Structure formats: C-alpha cells, structure tokens
C-alpha cells in the first residue's frame, strides 16, 4: 500500500497554486515531476563534486566519474541488462533512436523492409523515414483497430525475409495502449530482423526485464521517470553496439587519434562523444532508485486503480468519448467532448489549475485514423489521487457547460 501523503510530500512542486487553485498535474506522460531526493542529488553534484569525468586524476573528477558510472550500474540493474556497457547514456529517447537509425544506414540496401507501428510518436517515425530515404529501404506500417490496438495478424503478414528492422513502442504515448512486444520480438527474430522498442511511455509504469524480453535495442528518457530532462538511455545488445558505427565524433569516444587514422573507444564510450550530461546521468540513477524504493508493482497497481476510477467517472459525462480502449493500457486517458475542440477544454482546465495535454500528442497518424484534430489527454502517476480525479471530472463538466452555451 502507498502512503500517498508521504509520497506527495516528496514532490515540492505539488504544493504550487495555479490561477489560485492547487496544481493538479495530469500531464505525466509528457514529463513526470521531480522528487526532492533527485533535486538534492543535482544540488549536491554542483555544490560538492562538479568536474569532468573519465580523464582527471584529481579527487573531484574521480568522485564524479564514480558517481556517473555508479548510475550506469543502477540503470543496468533496474533494466536487468547483461552488461553495464550495454547502457549508453544519451540526451533522451529521440537521441537514442537516432543513434540506431543512423547506424543502420550502413546495413540496409534498396528493397529491404523496416516495420513501424501506426501507434508511434513522431520521434519513432521520422528517423526511420530519413533512414529509408538514405538507403532505399521500404517502410511498412502495422495498422490499428478501433480500440487503438495493433492488429497482430496484420503484423504477422508484414514480417518476411525482407524485414531487417522492426520498431514499436512498448506503450503508446497518445492512447496508453500496451503493445504485445514479446510476440513482435519473437516473430521478428524468426526472420533475423532486429527489434527496437521505444520504452519512453512504458518505463514509468512497467519495469522491463531486458534479458527476458530479448529486444535488440530498448530506449527510454529519465524525465518520464522522476529524473531530469536532457538525459536518457540507449540499451543495445553488446553484439549490436559493437557492430553499429559511432554516431558523433569527438572526445571521450576515441582510443587513438592521428591524422591518418582514429580508432574508437570500446563500449559504452564509443557512443558518448564529448562531455556528457554528468549531473543528469547521476540524477537518473537516483530517480530510478527512488521509484524502486516505492516498488514498480505497487506503482502499477495503484495507477491501475486510478485509471479504472477515472475511466468510470469520466464516462458519466454525456458526450465524452475515450480514445484508446484496450484492456491492456497504462494510466492514460485520451478523450474528447462531443463537438468541442480539445484546445478549448484544455484552456478551461488550466484556469482551474489542472494540467493536461491537448493536441495531437506528436502522433498525427493516430489522430488521422480517428478523424479528430487531437484529444485531451490526462495521464496519471503514483502521486495523483482520486480526489484530484474528482476535481478533473468536475472541471470537465464545467468546461462542457461553458463551451456549449
């Protein structure tokens, strides 16, 4: 059981007032809030041991290097990767995807096929379109049904000997659907295609076991996991990371440099050119440890309770339609009021101190599928409460009254 009041006390931002009302933060799928312990880690880093890592012999540099590498191990432990050097610290999910998309330019030829899903965020569509333009590979799309679920049979038909790569998100950011990635990974491996799973939306709710999952690549961002912005991870199987060419050249990623020839450093440094986000990496580790102290099973159970409660309460509002009605979903509710633009609803909710996301959620193909301009998306976290959901329902009713005058 969660002691919600204790947990809420860990997040200083939750005591803010917005437009004269207590902040109700339901935009967790965009970014999560930061607990004091993570804020403290950031302050301690800059006030006690800020230094560049991996090459200084002085004490500060050694302390910073130790903390950074310790964070990498914490991340490895959390995701159950086989080796710490399979965890590349990046600026976030988008950066991680681009490292892989860029590297695969060398492996693909004209006529090869890569598969994405219709549920993807733009960041998991555009890099692959660019890859196709560079190589002449063909992009295939797994369609969705009206519940916002991938049509598995259609995927089974798309996979063939021509398939070289498959990219799917673990959880859809716009709808919250949990995708059948275990099946997708197995089926893709049967034809020797590599699989990248975008875990940005899944990781706040689900603790993936990367060795059991057997994905070739898995990517995530710290800022959705109670960590800071500007840091994330690329997990890749050692054999893939050794094969992939480096993405950026610079310091840190080299073994030897001369004007005739440069040899690259080993993993993980090959992909970490330049001075990394040292403080961010350290805080990422602290954030994961914080969430693990609460426990991901406890978090998932509580968020599921919030999801069920909110779904039931919101559906009492006449004319409210929920998009994404899979039985397998995380605590995300995307909805619209009949004949009312999501922007208008979001504007009224903000006046009442409620933060939701409105728009197409960087997933335009999904909005086109449902023939809507966008949705209002409320996404819940373990520090939210049923009382806040009651306030949301009341506020949506108010928005409806005001906008239907």
């Amino acid at each position: 059981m969660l002691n919600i009041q204790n947990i809420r006390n860990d997040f200083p931002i939750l005591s803010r007032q917005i437009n004269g009302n207590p902040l109700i933060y339901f935009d967790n799928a965009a970014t999560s809030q930061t607990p004091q312990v993570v804020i403290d880690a950031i302050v301690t880093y800059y006030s006690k041991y800020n230094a560049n890592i991996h090459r200084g012999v002085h004490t500060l540099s050694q302390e910073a290097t130790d903390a950074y590498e310790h964070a990498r191990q914490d991340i490895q432990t959390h995701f159950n990767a086989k080796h710490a050097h399979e965890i590349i610290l990046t600026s976030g999910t988008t950066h991680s995807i681009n490292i892989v998309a860029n590297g695969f330019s060398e492996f693909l030829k004209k006529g090869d096929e890569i598969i994405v899903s219709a549920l993807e965020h733009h960041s998991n569509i555009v890099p692959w379109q660019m890859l196709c333009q560079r190589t002449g590979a063909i992009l295939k799309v797994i369609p969705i049904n009206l519940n916002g679920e991938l049509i598995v049979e259609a995927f089974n038909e798309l996979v063939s000997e021509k398939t070289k790569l498959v990219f799917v998100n673990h959880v859809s950011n716009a709808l919250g659907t949990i995708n059948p990635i275990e099946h997708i990974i197995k089926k893709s491996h049967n034809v020797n295609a590599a699989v990248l799973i975008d875990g940005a939306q899944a990781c706040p709710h689900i603790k993936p076991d990367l060795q059991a999952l057997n994905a070739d690549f898995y990517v995530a961002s710290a800022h959705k996991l109670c960590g800071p912005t500007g840091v994330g991870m690329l997990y890749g199987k050692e054999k893939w990371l050794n094969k992939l060419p480096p993405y950026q050249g610079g310091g840190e990623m080299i073994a030897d440099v001369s004007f005739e020839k440069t040899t690259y450093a080993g993993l993980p440094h090959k992909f970490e050119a330049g001075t990394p986000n040292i403080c961010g990496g350290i805080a990422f580790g602290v954030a994961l440890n914080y969430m693990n102290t609460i426990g991901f099973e406890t978090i998932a159970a509580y968020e599921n309770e919030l999801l069920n409660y909110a779904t039931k309460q919101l559906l009492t509002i006449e004319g409210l339609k929920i998009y994404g009605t899979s039985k397998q979903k995380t605590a995300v509710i995307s909805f619209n009021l009949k004949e009312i633009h999501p922007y208008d609803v979001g504007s009224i909710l903000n006046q009442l101190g409620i933060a939701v996301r409105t728009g197409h959620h960087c997933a335009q193909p999904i909005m086109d599928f449902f023939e809507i301009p966008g949705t209002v998306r409320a996404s819940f976290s373990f520090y939210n409460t049923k009382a806040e959901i009651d306030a949301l329902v009341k506020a949506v009713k108010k928005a409806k009254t005001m906008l239907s005058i």
Partner: protein
Amino acid sequence: MYFCVKLQAVSIQEIQNEIVDEFSMFDDWMQRYEYMIELGKSLPLIEEQYKTDDNIIKGCQSKVWVHAKMDNNTIVYTADSDAIITKGIIAILLRVFSNQHPKDIIEANTSFIDEIGLKEHLSPTRANGLLSMLKQIKLYAIAYQTQIK
C-alpha cells in the same frame, strides 16, 4: 477635408483602450472566458473559398485561417479557427486590426493582450496559431504598404 477626418475609423490605440476597459469590468476568469466564447460564436466566418491551405496557419493544436484584402487604403481581415476560444481571441484581434491603414497596423504594439489577461494564449508554447496569426496580420500590412508606395 474636415469631413474626411470625421469619417476616419477609430484608431488602433483607441480600440485597444476600449477593449482593456471592457475586460476590466469582469470579476473573474470565467466571465472573461464566457465573453470570449460568445465573441467566438459571433465572429463572421471567413468565406469558404478562402478557407484554403494557402490561408491556413497551422498551430500544433488549433487551426487558424486568415484572409486579407485592401479596401480604400485599409486592410480588411477575415479569419476563422476550429477552436472556439481561439476564435474569440481572433475576434478581438480583428476588431483591433481590421479596417485600419497598413502603416498603423505595422506600427501598432500589442501590449493590450497582456493587460486583458490573454497573454498565455499568445505565448509560443501554446502553438495555437495565434502568435503566427499576429505575425501574418503584420506581414499582410507590410505587403500592402509596399503596394501603396
């Protein structure tokens, strides 16, 4: 000559002052928003023929269409949006800028938007097309001003 001056439209600054006065009578945000929603509903729609991709200003969230034409050395703007609050703000912007001389539009400042508490709708983060619309209004004015010269 005197007659001409009498006929001239109220200046941009005067209209802005009027709007600030009107908004100062509202007690709370709800009255302000209800007024904007009303305005949004009463805004004469842009003629369907101008609701084209050429005239669209795509925000991340709501769409805005703007069309401009010259009439006796003043610019007449018409506009529309798919979101009602956005439309209400458009109505306010058109009241200020439509039927004005291009030179006055170019030189006008828009600080009244802060004063009536609608700044958040015109911040770059809102991506509702309004900030781009304001830019577009000024760009049309610059274009027509060049024609007059």
